[in-house]
């Protein structure tokens, strides 16, 4: 059974179509990535999913039931981590988690245990009596997450949880998400950081202009495009003749040279690196470090939309 089912969702802001006939099904146990640049409609989709926003058209089901603002039986199994840190500045770390957990778990004894676990999980044990304004950006994000997951939800929605977070906290957050998934939660993770999606998501939807452009595992998405690999190498000097010769090699789909760095993009094919090296030796071109890179989701996005993911 699909944990989340969105059918033909349309959300307009005046003339602007923020979500455009969007369809999605998320299965239990997935870490589902919703990837797209800023303004692509990810957060709007999430807000519609949670019945926070009204929408023009479409059907939304969670756990097989229609989602409405008063679907309290559904809401009790959802954890939400908003893009903006949603905590009370006047309450301490412990009090914030306790308060938000209290909206889901009224029993004091049970809640106390859950709050302690959430504090431990988020690595906030040393900061339990701190007020949010005393926390660093990373710790604040971790508090935001702890407030959203303390009640042990079955479905956790994280909307850009790592914006403006230091690498250490980011890793901690990503590891935490995987741990929550291992504990049985289905995760929806929206971001414009493709590395994060590649690192943790089992399935990914690429969004732009409110539309679902592509859907699949990261390998499936990469298989959709022609690009096989990109080879980069340090070249002291590259003549026009050599550059043109490289373009004639099999599977080459692009050549660029900038500030001593040669970039050659190949479509799928074998022995691309060997052929390139042979060519450079033959042309007596001196080269240094060589780096081969497989296609990224940014390449997928670039090929589908014609623009970079972070444009």
């Amino acid at each position, binding site marked *: 059974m699909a944990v989340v089912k969105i059918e033909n969702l349309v959300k307009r802001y005046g003339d602007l179509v923020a979500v455009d006939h969007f369809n999605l099904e998320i299965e239990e146990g997935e870490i589902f990535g919703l990837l797209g640049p800023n303004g692509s409609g990810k957060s709007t989709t999430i807000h519609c999913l949670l019945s926070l926003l009204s929408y023009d058209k479409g059907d939304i089901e969670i756990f097989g039931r229609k989602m409405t603002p008063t679907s309290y039986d559904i809401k009790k199994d959802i954890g939400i981590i908003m893009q903006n840190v949603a905590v009370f500045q006047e309450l301490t770390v412990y009090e914030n988690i306790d308060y938000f957990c209290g909206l889901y778990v009224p029993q004091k004894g049970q809640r106390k245990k859950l709050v302690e676990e959430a504090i431990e999980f988020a690595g906030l044990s040393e900061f339990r009596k701190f007020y949010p304004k005393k926390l660093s950006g990373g710790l604040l994000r971790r508090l935001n997450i702890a*407030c959203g997951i303390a009640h042990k939800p079955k479905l956790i929605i994280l909307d850009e949880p790592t914006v403006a977070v230091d690498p250490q906290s980011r890793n901690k957050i990503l590891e935490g998400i995987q741990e929550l998934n291992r504990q049985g939660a289905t995760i929806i993770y929206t971001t414009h950081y493709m590395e994060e999606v590649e690192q943790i998501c089992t399935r990914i939807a690429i969004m732009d202009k409110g539309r679902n452009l592509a859907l699949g595992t990261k390998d499936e998405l990469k298989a959709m495009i022609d690009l096989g690999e990109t080879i980069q190498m340090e070249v002291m000097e590259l003549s026009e003749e050599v550059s043109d010769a490289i373009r004639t090699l099999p599977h080459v789909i692009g050549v660029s040279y900038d500030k001593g760095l040669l970039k050659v993009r190949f479509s799928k094919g074998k022995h691309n690196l060997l052929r390139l090296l042979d060519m450079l030796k033959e042309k007596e071109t001196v080269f240094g470090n060589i780096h081969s890179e497989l296609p990224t989701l940014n390449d997928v996005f670039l090929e589908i939309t014609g623009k970079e993911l972070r444009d």
Partner: protein
Amino acid sequence: MIHIKYRMKTMLRQKSLIFWSLAFPLILGMMFYFMFGGINDLEQFQEVPVGILRGDSLPEEFVTMLKEVKTEGDIPLFQVKTYDTLYKAEKALQSEKIYGIIQSKDDLSLTVKSSDSYSSLIKTFLDQYRENTALITEMAEKNPDQVAAFVTDMAAGAQAKIAEIPLKGTDKDPYAQYFYALIAMTCLIGTMVGMHNGNDIQADLTAVGARRNVAPTPKLRQVLYDFTATYILYCVIVAVVTGVCVFVYGQDFGQNAGLVLLGGWIGSFTSLAIGEVIAVFIKGPVQKKEGICVAVFMISSFLAGLQWGDITFIIEEKCPVINRINPGTLIVNGFKSLSVYGDSRRYMINMVTLAVIGIICVIISVLKLRRVRYESI
């Protein structure tokens, strides 16, 4: 209980809110205390000076009654001063040596400088006299043989009544209204607290609001939790301010202290509800709503006489409906009904009106909030 506990903590830890709700009224009260303290001591109540004109054909029995009527404490109610000319009398009125000029023209006329409690006292006396005179005239026409007995009975009753009516309340201090307005203002600052309540439950206004909207605790319940928490807190604040006015600033609310406190609590309820309405119905950023709340409680306090005591009398003459619906005036008038006029019915009318305004505000904000899905976040 957890929701109420944390909501109270949230409010208590907002220093600016506590300053405006508690410290500011206390500081203002201190200023009143130093400005007006000792000016009007009830123990030193003195007769109200009234002017009449020499040679005016005022009824003799009226002048006698004017001179002889006394308070329950056996203090003469009026000090009758006789002037040779109207010009001199008016000059005395302007310089507040007298509070009214009574003349025989037009079946007894009263000239006052302004509408204050002293002029009200003189007017009440005149009205009572006119009413009694009319009754005697009517009796003389219908039952002339019983007039003598009737006059004797009525004279005794009227004497007591006239002395009683204006002094039924226990507080004749004209500056007391500033303290009433101060308590009213304390209540009205609750609009800011109510507005915070309203903001923190709306997903399109605050991130916290968004998180609370997706929780399984129904929004109506969350609104009531917030309201209850802040109302309890505000009841304590009003009690503290009232207590400081009584015990520190020496403002004597007499036997009505309990009802003054009750009035403050009803006023707080209504103010919180008005703040909630502002948060729910006014579109725009939090700063805009804060500005509107400040405007609401400042204007309401001004119209209730916080800055200028005579404003309520002027409004009563020009546009009385404002005094009937302005929460600040309703609170102040409620207090004055008790302390100045000793009229518990008027107090009740003011308090019930205030409570009804509050209940209407709560109902419309709840109706607006429940089941809402936002257009944009």
